[in-house]
């Protein structure tokens, strides 16, 4: 016969035991859904290495360009003085490809081209200010970036020529240099890497969301659609115990993906092609554990939230349509940090998902943050999870019958 609780504590124990049974069953059920599981785990395992390789290719390309110090010049034979200057600056001069104009427009060629007119040397000697033409395409971002460097190179040439002329006339060159501007970059190497790694927290977050999604729908809307929710409620259990058991299983699925994707960044680092990025992207065990400390409470909240949305839906399909709103909301969160003009605001840490993304970026940028920063999002997640679960428990009976 069924257990007969005869006191508050016995009832509590029975409820806990029931929640444990529901949890075990739901987890087993979710883990048997091999096809879904395989997709979710594979994509989260692949996430780290793929992202890192993509980033390292990007950074390596930028580095190669910075180190190459190449300038493509057409008609350099008309300007020996300019050639002398460029070579003294340790730049190499390359002839442009014949179809460079269309290649620039197509973005298959990533360098601006400097055009030197025929009478350059003569005009320069006569003090006639010869005209140089820098051909680039503003839609070609690689060429645009390099154009800045070439422009600065040419300004250097102009300044040297001007100084020489002044010196020959007996004028000290610094008469013309009224103000001196020096640059000081406040970003440390890790903060600079953060520009590249800013996307990582977002992808990890979405992986966690998708990890919990299927289980959340299956344990709520799926259970309704199958007609197994009504029999479940015939068991002499408090509804809270059923909901907590289900939630536990869904949260574990999300957490599983969180763990897998965080640790996939560790071996992913070996694949880094860029030395600079490898040096800047410091994602060790400490960072992985901090990520998990942030992601696990969030996985629990997302599980509860998805269940709360899905319990109102009669079918799996309807629930998928409804949870799109949640997916969209979470995926729009990083926009706050991408478009924020006033920097990080205190309220960012109060908003789930945004708080975790913000803090994960801080981890990547190597900024220090205290336990208080960790506790606030955790407390918010706990409070909201409790709210969502209470709602699911309230809806459960009505959901079973409709």
């Amino acid at each position, binding site marked *: *016969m*069924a257990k007969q609780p005869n006191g508050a504590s016995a009832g509590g124990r029975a409820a806990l035991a029931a929640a444990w049974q529901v949890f075990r069953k739901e987890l087993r059920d979710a883990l048997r859904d091999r096809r879904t599981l395989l997709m979710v785990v594979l994509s989260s395992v692949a996430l780290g290495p793929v992202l890192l390789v993509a980033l390292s290719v990007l950074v390596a390309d930028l580095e190669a360009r910075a180190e190459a110090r190449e300038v493509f010049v057409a008609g350099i034979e008309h300007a020996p003085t300019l050639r002398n200057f460029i070579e003294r600056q340790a730049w190499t001069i390359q002839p442009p490809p014949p179809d460079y104009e269309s290649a620039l427009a197509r973005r298959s060629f990533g360098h601006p081209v400097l055009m030197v007119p025929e009478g350059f040397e003569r005009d320069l000697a006569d003090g006639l200010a010869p005209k140089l033409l820098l051909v680039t395409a503003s839609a070609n971002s690689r060429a645009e970036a390099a154009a800045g460097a070439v422009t600065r190179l040419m300004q250097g040439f102009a300044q040297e020529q001007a100084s020489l002329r002044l010196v020959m006339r007996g004028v000290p060159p610094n008469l013309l240099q009224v103000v001196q501007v020096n640059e000081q970059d406040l970003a440390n190497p890790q903060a600079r890497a953060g520009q590249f790694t800013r996307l990582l927290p977002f992808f990890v977050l979405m992986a966690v969301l998708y990890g919990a999604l299927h289980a959340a729908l299956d344990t709520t809307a799926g259970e309704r659609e*199958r007609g*197994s929710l009504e*029999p479940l409620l*015939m068991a002499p259990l408090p509804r809270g115990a059923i909901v907590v058991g289900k939630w536990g299983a869904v949260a574990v699925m999300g957490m599983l993906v969180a763990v897998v994707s965080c640790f996939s960044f560790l071996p992913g680092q070996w694949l880094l092609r860029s030395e600079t990025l490898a040096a800047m992207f410091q994602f060790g065990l400490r960072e992985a554990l901090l990520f998990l400390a942030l992601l696990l409470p969030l996985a629990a909240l997302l599980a509860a939230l998805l269940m709360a949305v899905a319990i109102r839906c009669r079918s799996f399909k309807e629930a998928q349509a409804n949870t799109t709103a949640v997916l969209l909301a979470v995926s729009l969160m990083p926009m706050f940090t991408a478009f924020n003009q006033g920097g990080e605001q205190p309220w960012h840490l109060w908003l789930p998902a945004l708080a975790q993304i913000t803090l994960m970026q801080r981890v990547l940028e190597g900024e220090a943050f205290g336990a208080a920063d960790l506790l606030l999002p955790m407390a918010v997640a706990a409070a909201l999870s409790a709210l969502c679960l209470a709602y699911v428990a309230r809806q459960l009976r009505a959901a079973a019958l409709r």
Partner: protein
Amino acid sequence: MIEVRGLAKQFVQGSGRSRRVLAAVQSVGFVAADACITGLLGPNGAGKTTTLRMVAGLLVPDAGTIEVAGIDVATRPQQAQARLGVLSDARGLYPRLTARENIVYYGRLHGLDEGTAQARAAQLAGMLDMAALLDRRTEGFSQGERMKTALARALVHDPSHIILDEPTNGLDVLATRGLREALRHLRDEQRKCIVFSTHIMQEVERLCDQVVVVAGGRTVAEGSVPELLARTGQTDFEACFVQLAFGEAAARAGGGAA
């Protein structure tokens, strides 16, 4: 014993101008004795499923009382549920679990330990002639196989009271016979109190010791099949049921057409 008195339940659909009140159950009452099969007979929409859901503690009645083995369902729903085995209208199984796992899961939810739940699953499989199904996943089960699994699941905690909502729906002749035998066995060997709802006369004639005729949300007649026949003066149970449920005029019209 299950005692139901003066049960009423209405549902509100929509809101504002499109608000409609549907009186699903207005006055249903019956007593189902132990070691007895009681049939809840009524046309579609008579309020059978709603009544049984209230007995099972899934719905809270607007009025009336329900007692299962002397336990008031309204005040002690969990104790009542522990004594009830319900095969509801919704018979969803978990497709990725085997039949055995489906059954044992409910055993564990009812507080059985693993060993007892496993033993009960094996025992019920013997009684319901489904031992060959036990270790198959329920995905792709036929209607009959699903019904057996769902029934075994409902009985896993050896409840003294059994409620079945239209159990023969979608079953073929053999499966229906098998179910009938199982119910007789439960009544005769284990002295269970069994209540099942149906709209099929033959089921009632073959199986029920006691019939409760429900129509329009009310109990319109209660008694054994011979008693009801005698009361209406009919020889055919179908005509007897139509007369009880819809009135004499309907019974004559139906008889004339046939």
